[in-house]
């Protein structure tokens, strides 16, 4: 920065007027206060000096842990679902079909032997 670009007399006068209008605060306390305000905002923003890929790395670790927990939970839920299906199928076999089967056996046991059975018994015994 320099005043290399020279001005004519008129512009010097104009420059003086402008400098008066745009004079910065002269009190050192003002600058100390401005620095404090700037640094307060910087501290509020946290550690922003990390690059995006460093932040992504931090998130990736958290993401991997979350994904692991989700996978374990999903596996446990799947196992429970399969166990419940198997139990339901077993109960359907054990409890759902016995009445008609037993009825059929009883009906068969109670019924008179037909001709074919009598023939079979005769062939086996001779």
């Amino acid at each position, binding site marked *: *920065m*320099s*005043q*290399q*670009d020279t*001005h004519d*007399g*008129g*512009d010097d*006068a*104009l*420059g003086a*007027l*402008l*400098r*008066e*209008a*745009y*004079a*910065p*605060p002269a009190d050192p306390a003002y*600058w100390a206060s*401005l*620095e404090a*305000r*700037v*640094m307060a*905002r*910087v*501290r509020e*923003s946290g*550690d*922003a*000096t*990390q*690059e995006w890929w460093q932040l992504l790395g931090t998130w990736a670790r958290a993401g991997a842990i979350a994904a692991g927990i989700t996978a374990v939970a999903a596996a446990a839920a799947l196992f429970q679902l399969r166990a419940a299906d198997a139990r339901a199928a077993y109960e359907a076999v054990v409890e759902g079909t016995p009445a008609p089967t037993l009825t059929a056996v009883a009906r068969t046991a109670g019924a008179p032997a037909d001709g074919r059975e009598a023939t079979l018994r005769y062939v086996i015994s001779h």
Partner: protein
Amino acid sequence: MTAILRLPGAPALAPDSPDAPDRAAPVRVLDAGAALERARERALVIAAQAGDQDAFAGLVRQHQQRAYAVARAVVVTHEDAEDAVQEGFLHAYKAIARFRPDQPFGAWLHRIVANAALDVTRRRKVRDADTLPETVASPFRDPAVDGDLRARLERELGALGERQRAVIVLHDVQGFKHAEIGRMLGIPEGTARSDLHHARAQLRRALHDVRSDL
């Protein structure tokens, strides 16, 4: 380009001295104080990049007055300039990891602050479009300035385009070169030169009947 380090108080070499540099070669003489200042600034930048907030505070202390001057040239009021300075330093802090420490920190920062000031100006325009301000913002801090002249200059600065006002203040008040202003505002050097010419002419025309020396 040759760089010569001149210690404070040391006499300059006579032109005919055998140690004097070749006149044909471009020579840049660096003041030892400036070189030390540059080295100190570089150390602060490197420490700030490593996350040292005290080092960044050192950079704020070193550059805030120039940053204010840049912001003040772009916006209309002192309060907006303060906002722009704070925004600018915050952006610089967030982006400091990408800054190359061998570059001049000031030039980089000034561009960021100028952009922040332009953002503040745009936001102000949107707000002011909805509400009519009760008083016109004044750039003056010294009430002793002649009333008529002050009112005229105020009005004429307001009538200048935003960019022309920034260029004339950055050049005639803050002493920046056309090329530096161009880089800060993102415009070609020739445009900065032309804006300066038109802004000066407009202010001179408007103020001539109040101040004949203009």
